[in-house]
């Protein structure tokens, strides 16, 4: 029997994909067992619940321990740490200081403004009751008492723009769909988050699925639809499961189905699973895919708001856009339009990944300087390396160099810089990242994921990859850059869908900011970042080598020899240029050349 006098105990454990992979479910079980063991379960009805992504995935498993309203957050929690936390903190009243989050956790959150993610990490995503208790479904209930035009005016006045790519004004899209002729109309949610490096939509659905459902109910009422679809990636099993459960719960509460919220309105939502095709994130391809076909994009002579799914007017927004809707209805257009920059309103969620200290999900007001996101929230670049670029917008986007770090983050500035907002993936690159290799990566991605329908994209991007391969293999000539630029222009002009027209963007933007790297590959036969194997070799600086033998022990090719405490040597004939020695050397003795 514990000696605590606490009455209310709430343990919130991160159970997003990051939390689960780090062992979140085991931590939950350990807490339950430990609370039982200390006799707390019988006396105080403690609540141990799973919550969605808390953003700072690098610190998982993150756990909030709340005792009588006072919350402490622990990082890197494992089942072994649970017993001491329960006995010292919950029973003894003294938090286990050494395992609490540190200063960096607070800095990570200081400049953020969590609106869309406000409930993620706070409520149990599998409980509709917790969502309702947090104010959920109030906006939908309110909206159903309003006229459709009134709702559309609010969304227009809020300045909300699509969070999935182009940034089209949401209210105008809704209005076009409402005005389109036809009785049957569809509202669709794009949860086919395919941009590599972006996972905000996954986290929203895993952490707060009801917000998306509520947004879609409001949209359906405004547009005049009785049937909605969420097209979601099969690669996100946890999100699919939580969404499915949330839909069932909403039906039980009569928020979905016939006569929802006690009104005359019928509306229900169906889940359609993707099957691993990136191109299905494109609006028309997504619709083709729901129609039981291979997901090939269609020409957009007629807007999908007029003729979309099964030829009917269809309104497609992505997960984050839908999740913004309830709070706009709840708090008003004026409030929302007060957040962000001149033409980009509200907040945007970015996933901060790659060569950055604080990887995770961040939500910031639009217009915040890029520098603040990378160096304050993100905590800068690991191992004191130099920041080189940040890639945004997925395969359709571009790379932003260090010289533009003070740029405000919004739709306008990102596209001026030759990139785009996209869904908000931010991949940070340091001095060890080769920009030619990165371009090649994205174009290869488009070759693999292209649908093969139109010639410019299918053949043109393929040829660009071939040219990039030659450059990284040391076979580049002075003609290569010109050919790349010519192909890029043609593909941009003539491809069928937005994926094709944007496929050359990574090359265009890296040629704009990092042309010197291309030239080094072509003329000096040298990869400055030491990534392209044919143009890189590693050697050991005898003055810096302490002979610690770490490199020799880790070399998979057995290419490094040397006596203990004596300088080591790399046998260039045996070296496979895998970089392991370079990355592991604690003395900076392994040099690239």
């Amino acid at each position: 029997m514990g000696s605590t006098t606490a009455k209310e105990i709430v343990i919130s454990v991160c159970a997003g994909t990051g939390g689960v992979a780090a062992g979140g479910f085991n931590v939950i079980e350990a807490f339950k067992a430990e609370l039982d063991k200390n006799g707390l379960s019988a006396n105080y009805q403690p609540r141990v619940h799973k919550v969605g992504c808390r953003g700072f995935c690098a610190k998982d498993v993150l756990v909030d321990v709340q005792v009588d309203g006072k919350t402490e957050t622990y990082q890197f929690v494992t089942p072994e740490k649970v017993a001491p936390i329960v006995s010292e903190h919950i029973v003894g009243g003294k938090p286990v200081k050494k395992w609490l989050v540190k200063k960096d956790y607070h800095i990570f959150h200081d400049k953020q403004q969590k609106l869309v993610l406000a409930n993620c990490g706070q409520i149990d995503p599998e409980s509709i009751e917790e969502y309702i208790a947090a104010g959920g479904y109030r906006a939908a209930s309110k909206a159903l008492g309003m006229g459709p035009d009134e709702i559309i005016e609010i969304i227009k006045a809020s300045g909300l723009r699509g969070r999935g790519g182009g940034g089209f004004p949401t209210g105008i899209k809704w209005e076009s769909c409402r005005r389109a002729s036809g009785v049957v109309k569809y509202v669709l949610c794009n949860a086919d988050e395919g941009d590599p490096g972006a996972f905000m939509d996954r986290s929203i659905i895993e952490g707060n699925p009801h917000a998306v459902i509520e947004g879609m109910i409001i949209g359906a009422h405004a547009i005049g639809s009785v049937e909605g679809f969420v097209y979601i990636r099969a690669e996100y099993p946890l999100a699919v499961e939580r969404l499915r459960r949330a839909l069932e719960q909403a039906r039980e509460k009569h928020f979905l189905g016939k006569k929802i919220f006690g009104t005359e309105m019928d509306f229900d939502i169906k889940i359609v699973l993707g099957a691993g095709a990136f191109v299905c994130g494109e609006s028309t391809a997504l619709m083709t895919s729901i129609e039981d076909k291979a997901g090939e994009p269609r020409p957009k002579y007629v807007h999908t708001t007029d003729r979309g799914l099964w030829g009917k007017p269809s309104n497609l927004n992505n997960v984050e856009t839908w999740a913004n809707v309830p709070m706009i209805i709840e708090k008003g257009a004026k409030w929302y339009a007060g957040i962000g920059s001149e033409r980009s309103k509200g907040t945007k969620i970015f996933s901060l990944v790659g060569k950055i200290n604080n990887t995770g999900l961040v939500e910031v007001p639009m217009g915040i300087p890029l520098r603040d996101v990378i160096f304050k929230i993100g905590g800068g670049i690991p191992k004191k390396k130099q920041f080189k670029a940040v890639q945004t917008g997925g395969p359709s986007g571009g790379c932003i160099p260090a010289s533009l770090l003070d740029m405000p983050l919004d739709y306008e500035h990102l596209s001026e810089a030759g990139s785009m907002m996209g869904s908000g993936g931010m991949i940070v690159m340091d001095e060890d990242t080769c920009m030619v290799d990165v371009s090649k990566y994205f174009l290869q991605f488009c070759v693999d994921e292209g649908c093969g329908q139109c010639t410019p994209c299918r053949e043109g991007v393929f040829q660009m990859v071939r040219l990039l391969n030659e450059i990284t293999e040391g076979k580049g000539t002075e003609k290569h850059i010109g050919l790349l630029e010519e192909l890029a222009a043609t593909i941009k002009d003539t491809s069928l869908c937005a994926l094709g027209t944007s496929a050359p963007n990574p090359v265009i933007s890296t040629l704009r900011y990092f042309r010197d790297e291309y030239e080094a590959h072509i003329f000096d036969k040298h990869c400055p970042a030491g990534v392209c194997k044919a143009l890189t070799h590693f050697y050991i600086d005898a003055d810096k080598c302490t002979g610690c033998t770490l490199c020799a022990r880790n070399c998979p090719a057995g290419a490094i020899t040397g006596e203990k405490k004596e300088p080591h040597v790399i046998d260039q004939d045996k070296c496979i240029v895998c970089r392991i020695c370079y990355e592991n050397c604690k003395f900076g003795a392994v040099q690239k050349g």
Partner: protein
Amino acid sequence: MDVAAMDAILAKFPTIRGNLIGILHEMQSHFNYLPEEDLRYLSKKTQIPITQIYSIANFYNRFSLKPKGKNTVCVCLGTACHVKGAERVMDEIKAQLKVDVGESTDDMQFSLEEVRCIGACSLAPAVVVNEETYGQVAPKQIHGILQKFKK
């Protein structure tokens, strides 16, 4: 051909419209691939031309027309994983399993797949075996991970 299994799968879908991909997902998870005979049965039952079914089965990465191994090893090659060395992890798995991407081991224990981002970028580089996600995977961990799934 497994008529009983196919009928059970079809019974889960009250309408066919908008559900064909869902049906193929169920078949893929039941049979571990899409057997031709069962696809033909599906075509007969649903009146959807076999050519349309085949084009879908062929288009989407999640569907396989060849039998797959007992365990699926999926290496994430998303951008974050790429810049953090996913290729080295992939090379190591290829070497240990002695297969290329899209192939299965001779004993049908493992199939090797690549995926372009599973959205677990903070865990980069990530590897998914069946339903289990492994984060910050280093090549030297591969042996241990694979060992866990060998019967």
